C-alpha cells in the first residue's frame, strides 16, 4: 500500500479543525465538508480492504526516537469501528448545525480533533501511540461537555475527565511493564506474546481499570449518565456511538489476546458485573423521567451484553459483541438524535412534557419507532443480530449468565416501549409539544442514513461480518487454550437409526402399495 490512506484520513479532519478554529461562522461548512471527505476516504478504505488478505492491512510505519513508533494499520475489527466513527461524524455536525450558536468555530474544531483521535485510536499499531490517541480524546470531550453542555455541565465534565483519567493511568504503567518485558511496543507482536501467567493477572486488572470505565461496566458507569445528559446532542452521539466502543475495542485488542489466561480467570468477574448491569441499569432506566438519562442507562445495559459476549471465548460471542457495538453505536446515536430533534424545539428532555407526537410529527415518530425497535432487538434490525449471536455465544459457556442477560431484552422492551408510548402515543397533553413541526430536511439527512444502515445490518449482517471473520477466527484460536469449560455440556449424540415417530410395522404388514 503506497498511498498512506490512514494518515490522510487523520490529516483531513486535522486540517479542517485548524481551519475551523479561525473560521467562526463559516466553520460549519468546513466541518461538514471535511467530515464528508473523511467518510469518502473511509468508504474507499472499506472497498480496498481485502477480506481474505493479510490480517493487518494499510500498514504505515515510521520510527520515532521518542520511545515509540508511528505505526498504523487495521484489521477488520478496526475497519468496522473506523467506519462507524467516520459515518457518525457528518451526522454529528449536522445535528449541531443550528443547536450550537456560541463559539461555533471552537466547537467544530473540537469535534474534528475528536475524529482524528478516534481514527488514530482504532488504527494505532503501537501501544503507546494507542495510549496517546486514547487519552488525548479527553481534552476535546471535556471542552465539548463543559462549554456547550447543559446546566450541570461542570460537574459532569469534571466527573468524566477524572474518572476516565484515573482509569487509564494504571494502564500506562502496565504498558511500560509489558514493553520492557516483551521488548517491543508493536501491538501485533504483543498480541502473540505470552506474558508470564502470574503477571497477566495484574496486567489484566490494570487494563480492566481503564476499559471498564470506558465501556462502562457497572459499578464504574456513574460518569456516563451525567456526561450524556449534560453533553450537547452531538456530544452524546459521539460518546455513545464511538467513545464507549473504545472500551470494548480495548478488550478485543489488548485484554483478550494479550492476557488470555487472566481473561479466563476473570471471566466470572466480567459475567457477574455484566449480569448486575443488565438487570440493574435496565430497572433504573425504567424509572427515568429524563429521556437522555434513560438512553444512557440503556447503553450501560447493552454494553454489558457486549462484555458478556467478549468473554464467552467463542466465535459467536465475539462476533455478536462486535455487531452489538456497531449496532449500538448507530442506534443509541440515533436515539440521542431523536431526543435532540425534539429538544431543539422545546428545550426540555422531560418525558412528561411530550405526548402524542405521532399526530403532529408522523415522520419523526416512524424514525423514532424504528430506532426503538432496533434498540430492543427486533428481528430485521441490527440489534437483533448482535444480541442473538452474543447470547448464543454465552449460552455455550454458562446457561445462567445467558438466562440473566436475556432478561435484559425483555426489560429493554419494557423501558423503550414505555418511553415511546409516553412520547409518541397518547393524547397531545401539552400545547407547545403539539405545535411542533415535523422533521426538516436537515434532520431527514441525519436520520435516514442511520435508519438505512440499521436495516442493512439487520437483514444482511454478512457485509459487516465478512471483513472481521478471519480476525475473529485468529482471536478465537488464540483464546481456545484458555477458554473456560461450559456448564451446559452440550454433546453431540449419536443419531437414532430411525425417525423419532417411526412405528414398528405389524407382523405381516408389507406396507402400502405392496400389492
Amino acid at each position, binding site marked *: 500500500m503506497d498511498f498512506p490512506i490512514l494518515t490522510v484520513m487523520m490529516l483531513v479532519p486535522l486540517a479542517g479543525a485548524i481551519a475551523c478554529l479561525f473560521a467562526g461562522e463559516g466553520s460549519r461548512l468546513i466541518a461538514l465538508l471535511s467530515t464528508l471527505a473523511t467518510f469518502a476516504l473511509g468508504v474507499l478504505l472499506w472497498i480496498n480492504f481485502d477480506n481474505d488478505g493479510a490480517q493487518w492491512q494499510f500498514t504505515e510505519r515510521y520510527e520515532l526516537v521518542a520511545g515509540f513508533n508511528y505505526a498504523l494499520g487495521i484489521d477488520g475489527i478496526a475497519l468496522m469501528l473506523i467506519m462507524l466513527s467516520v459515518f457518525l461524524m457528518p451526522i454529528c455536525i449536522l445535528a449541531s448545525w443550528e443547536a450550537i450558536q456560541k463559539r461555533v468555530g471552537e466547537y467544530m474544531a473540537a469535534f474534528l480533533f475528536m475524529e482524528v483521535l478516534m481514527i488514530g485510536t482504532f488504527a494505532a499499531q503501537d501501544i503507546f501511540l494507542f495510549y496517546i490517541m486514547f487519552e488525548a480524546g479527553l481534552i476535546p470531550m471535556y471542552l465539548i461537555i463543559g462549554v456547550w453542555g447543559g446546566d450541570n455541565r461542570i460537574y459532569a465534565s469534571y466527573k468524566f475527565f477524572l474518572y476516565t483519567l484515573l482509569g487509564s493511568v494504571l494502564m500506562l504503567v502496565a504498558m*511500560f511493564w509489558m514493553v520492557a518485558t516483551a521488548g517491543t511496543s508493536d501491538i501485533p507482536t504483543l498480541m502473540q506474546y505470552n506474558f508470564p501467567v502470574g503477571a497477566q493477572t495484574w496486567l489484566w486488572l490494570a487494563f480492566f481499570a481503564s476499559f471498564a470505565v470506558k465501556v462502562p461496566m457497572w459499578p464504574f458507569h456513574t460518569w456516563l449518565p451525567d456526561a450524556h445528559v449534560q453533553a450537547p446532542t452531538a456530544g452524546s452521539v459521539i460518546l455513545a456511538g464511538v467513545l464507549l466502543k473504545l472500551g470494548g475495542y480495548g478488550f478485543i485488542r489488548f485484554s483478550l489476546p494479550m492476557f488470555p489466561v487472566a481473561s479466563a480467570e476473570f471471566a466470572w468477574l466480567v459475567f457477574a458485573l455484566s449480569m448486575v448491569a443488565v438487570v440493574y441499569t435496565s430497572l433504573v432506566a425504567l424509572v427515568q423521567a429524563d429521556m437522555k438519562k434513560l438512553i444512557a442507562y440503556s447503553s450501560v445495559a447493552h454494553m454489558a451484553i457486549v462484555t458478556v459476549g467478549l468473554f464467552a471465548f467463542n466465535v459467536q460471542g465475539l462476533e455478536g459483541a462486535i455487531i452489538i457495538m456497531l449496532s449500538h453505536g448507530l442506534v443509541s446515536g440515533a436515539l440521542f438524535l431523536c431526543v435532540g430533534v425534539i429538544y431543539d424545539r422545546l428545550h426540555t428532555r422531560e418525558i412528561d412534557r411530550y405526548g402524542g407526537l405521532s399526530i403532529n410529527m408522523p415522520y419523526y415518530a416512524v424514525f423514532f419507532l424504528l430506532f426503538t425497535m432496533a434498540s430492543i432487538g427486533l428481528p430485521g434490525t441490527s440489534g437483533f443480530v448482535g444480541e442473538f449471536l452474543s447470547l448464543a455465544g454465552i449460552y455455550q459457556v454458562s446457561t445462567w449468565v445467558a438466562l440473566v442477560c436475556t432478561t435484559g431484552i425483555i426489560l429493554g422492551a419494557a423501558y423503550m416501549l414505555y418511553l415511546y408510548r409516553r412520547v409518541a402515543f397518547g393524547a397531545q397533553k401539552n400545547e407547545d409539544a403539539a405545535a411542533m413541526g415535523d422533521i426538516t430536511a436537515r434532520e431527514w439527512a441525519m436520520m435516514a442514513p442511520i435508519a438505512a444502515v440499521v436495516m442493512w445490518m439487520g437483514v444482511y449482517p454478512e457485509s459487516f461480518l465478512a471483513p472481521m471473520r478471519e480476525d475473529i477466527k485468529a482471536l478465537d484460536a488464540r483464546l481456545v487454550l484458555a477458554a473456560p469449560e461450559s456448564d451446559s455440556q452440550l454433546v453431540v449424540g449419536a443419531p437414532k437409526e430411525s425417525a423419532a415417530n417411526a412405528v414398528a410395522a405389524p407382523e405381516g404388514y408389507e406396507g402400502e402399495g405392496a400389492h
Partner: protein
Amino acid sequence: MLDLANSFDLIIPELILTGAGLLLLLVAAWGGDQLSRPIAILAATALFGAGIALVPDLHFGTDGPQTLAFNGLLRVDSFALFAKAMIYLAAIGALIIAPAFFASPAAGEERGMRAEYPILIIFASVGMSIMVSASDFMALYLGLELNSLAAYVLAAILRKDDRSAEAGLKYFVLGALASGILLYGMSLLYGFTGGTDFATVRAGLEGDLAYGPLFGLIFVMAGLAFKIAAVPFHMWTPDVYEGAPTPVTAFFATAPKVAAVALTARVVFDVFGGQVLAWQQIVMFAALASIVFGALGAIGQENLKRLLAYSSINNVGFILLGLAVADQAGASAMLIYLFIYVAMSLGSFTALLMLRGDDGDLFETFGDIKGLAVTQPALAWCLLLFMFSLAGIPPLLGFYSKFVVFQATVEAGLVVFAAIAIAASVIGAFYYIKFVKVMFFDEPAELVTGKSGMAHWVLLALTALIISPLGYLLTPSLTDLADKAARSLFFTI
C-alpha cells in the same frame, strides 16, 4: 600553570557572567535606575553569550578527568553543562518578562525596574553554575549561598510592598535554616570521612554505613530537599511564590529549581553513589509525598501564583521519581522532565503576567480570569495547553516528560511505586482542569482587557510551541543531550 589555564578554560561561562555582573554593577551605580533597560539587555546578552560558550562541549559530550577544574573543586561535565544551559535560558526568560511587570501598577509605589534586578539575576546564575558543577562540598556551599543571597534580595526587590518584603524575609530565614542543616550534615560527613571533596567522602562511605555518616547523609538530604521544595520541606514555597514579584517567581520556579535538582542528583550519585539504599528510600518518600501534597494543597487555592507554587511542588515529586530510580535511565528521564518543566513553568508564568487590565494592572486570582476564552482567546488557549501539559495529558509534551520518568521507574522494577505515583497524579489533574473550567466554562468577568507587549507574546508562543505536539520534534536531540549528561553523571573518577 597549564592546569590553571585548563581550569579557567572550563569556567569560561562563569567568567563571562562574573565579569558582566561586576561591570554592570558599576554601570548601575553610575547611571542609576534609568539605565535599567540597557542593563537588562546587556545582562541577557551576557547570559546568552555564556550559553553559547557551553554549546561545543554540550554537543559533543564531555566526561572523565579532563572535566575537573581547580584540583577537583569543580567538575564541568555534560551534566553540569546541560543544567547550566537550562539555567541560563530560564534566567533570560526572567529578564524578558520583568520590565513590563515593574512598569505596571502591580509593582506598587516603585514603578520601573530597578537596575539591580538584572545584576542580581546574573549573580544568582553564577551561583547556580557553581552549584551544578560543584565537586566539593565547599564549592557546593559557595555556589548555593551566592545563589541564595541573590535570591533573597530578588524576592524582596519591591521594598515598599508588604507581600514582597514578607516573602523576602521568609525566604531568608527559612533558607538560612536550610543552609544550616546542610552545613551541619556536611560537617558530619567531613568529620567521619576526613574530606570535603566528593571523591574522598565517597571513598570514606564505602562499606556498611555507620550512624554518624548516616546522620550526615540525612541532614544533607534534608537541606537539599529544602532547596528543591520537596515535601516535607516545602512550606516556604507557596508564601514566597505568592509574595515575590511575578517575574521573580517565574525565575524561582525555573532556574534555581534546575540548579537544586541537579545539585541533588550530583550529591546522591557522586557522594552517596555507594550507598544507594540509604538515600533511595528518602527520595522515594519525598517524591510520593510531594506528588500527593503538592496536588492536595493546590486544590483549595484561589490565587494563581500560589497554585502554581503547589504545582511546582507536585512537579518536583515527579522529578524526584526519576532520581529515585537511581540509574542512568532515571537520571536522563529526570533531565528531560526538568527541561519540559522549565518550558511549561516559564510559559504559565508569562501567561500570568499577561493577565492585565486596561490600566495595565495585573490579575492573579481565579475570579479574575473567568471566561478568559471569550475576552482573550489566544491567551486562554495557550494557558489551556500549559495546564493540560502540566497535568500530563497527551499529546502535549508534558505527557512525554511523565512518560519517560514512569518508563524509567517501571523498567527499574519499581512497579508498585510507579503505580501509586501515577494514581496520585490524577489528583493534580483536578486543579489543572479547574483552570480550563474557569477560563472556558464560566461567564466572562471582562476584567482582563489590556494588551500585552511583543516580548511576552513571543515568549508565550515559543514555550507553547515547545509543549505542543510539535515539541516531539525536539525529543531526539533532547534525549541525546540528556543521555550524555546522565552518562557523565555516572562517570566516577
